[in-house]
């Protein structure tokens, strides 16, 4: 058995890459993932990628932020140290709205960013894991899990036929580790 872990088909053109995906799918070769230097419309649908659940996380973080500051303001301004400000009642809900709004937005923004970093294994200072460095520059890369997908030669030929400018048989999953 060969030591190849992943087969990468490198395309120079997004349309040819989309064609490559079609060819592979027609021949029932499962695609591990696709890496492109820019967003490509319609690719999620083609690869059958599920909708992102980031929105739900954002909603939950927003609720958390709003609840946190509302309770905090309530504790401080009503429970612990009620003050007479312009003759308004201590529990003056309209006054609480701006800060509740701000914290909802703040928690949503930070929460979404952190969730995104967590889900994509990114974090400031961490070396990103990349399967092929040129996927961040000018190559459109289709990655195929080599284990269980044989014969490798056939896959190589399919990619070449579809217009791949280069096909790599990599022994390591990522070219860069921490």
């Amino acid at each position, binding site marked *: 058995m060969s030591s190849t872990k992943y087969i990468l088909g490198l395309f120079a053109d997004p349309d040819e890459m989309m064609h490559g995906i079609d060819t592979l799918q027609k021949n029932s070769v499962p695609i591990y993932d696709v890496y492109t230097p820019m967003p490509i*419309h*319609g690719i999620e649908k083609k690869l059958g990628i599920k*909708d992102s659940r980031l*929105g739900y996380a954002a*909603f939950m973080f927003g609720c958390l932020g709003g609840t946190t500051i509302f309770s905090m303001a309530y504790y401080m301004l009503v429970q612990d140290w009620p003050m007479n400000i*312009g*003759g*308004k009642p201590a529990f003056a809900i*309209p*006054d609480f*709205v*701006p800060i509740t709004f701000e914290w909802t937005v703040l928690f949503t923004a930070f929460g979404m960013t952190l969730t995104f970093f967590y889900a994509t294994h990114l974090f400031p200072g961490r070396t990103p894991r990349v399967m092929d460095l040129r996927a961040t520059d000018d190559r459109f890369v289709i990655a195929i899990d080599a284990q269980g997908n044989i014969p490798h030669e056939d896959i190589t030929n399919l990619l070449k036929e579809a217009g791949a400018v280069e096909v790599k048989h990599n022994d390591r999953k990522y070219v860069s580790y921490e």
Partner: protein
Amino acid sequence: MNNSHSFDGQFEFKGTAKTWSIIMIAVGVIGLIAGFLTNGERTFADLLLNGYYMSCVCICGIFFCAVQYVAQAGWSTAVLRVPQAFAKVLPYAGIILLVIIIAGLFTTHQGPNEEGKITTIPYLYKLWALKGVTDPHSENFDAVITAKSGYLNTWFFLARLAIYLGSYSLIGRMLVKYSNNEDELGGMFNYNKSFKMSVIFLLVFGFTVPLFAFDTIMSLEAHWFSTMFGWYNFAALWVSGLSVITLTLILLRKAGYMQWVTEDHLHNLGQLMFGFSVFWTYLWFAQFLLTWYANIPEEATYFYKRWEPQFKPWFWLNIIINFLAPLLTLMSRDSKRKVQVLQAACIILICGHWLDYWQMIMPGTIGAAKGSEWYTILSPIDLALFVGFAGLFIFMLLTALSKFKSLIPKKHPLLEESLHHHL
């Protein structure tokens, strides 16, 4: 993706749409006659409300086109004919609004003035268009209004309204003309001209739309003022206009027209409706919070009237229907892409912003005189006239739409981008 649409199909205005719009107009006419027989003051307030609403929706069509051209947005090309039809209706809507205002200013009746004394007052703008309001010897003399009368006097007021509506209509007409011309000739020439005209429109519109709201609506309660009022009205104009544009598109699609409009286009419009509902709330709240907190009598008078126990339910309903309803229905991606949900949201927002305008207008126009219904009641005349104006708008809109040779600007330079729009 199916791109083999025929762009040459024209819209035909006939059948149920025509019948229903005429029935709705008939309801409005009956409401109008019944209104004048029972309560002229309320009928005039309703006419102003609906005339203003209709004009605002038409202005929103021009604003939509102008924003798309200035932003050089590609996605909207497929839907552009609908706001263009709105722009074509504006001259008529503007004339209707002007006629209502002129009639309201120059016809008078016996009613209570600010102090509750019965005197001869005009039907609309009774606070400042009252006879003798600037004359120190008259019993109607009002020092506050006199100080404002350099700006707030009948002729300057009418001239301003004519200038706003006239310039918007003119620019709207030019944009439609360029687009029709583009259909014939192709090329970038008309697109570039539309771009320039849109820039001019946004400049004119940005400076005059707050004044339009100040003049038409805020001057009903001329002792009171709020600098937020103009933008608050602009937000209402934009949200309600977007809702009407989206609803028109959905119904046209259901009737078999404009099949190139995909759920991606509707998704974009849904996003705009969602976002600007929040913007509307932000402005509404900014106006409310500062007034409530500062509690200065001359500012608080506006909310005082709207916080009368009988009126308070309407006040809160306004926030529920215009903020919470779109927030919760349009937040998720799926609901913006499901036509039925989006359609329901459009209808909610259209009714919601009618209620919003109703709240702005009624307390300042309807007095507590004998025989006049108090402003806290939603009367059948209100509803009949709303239905009537909706019918009139549908009739004029669909007539304007049926005059376009094609339902898409088929030689627009960004057409392909729009047909392949994907979110």
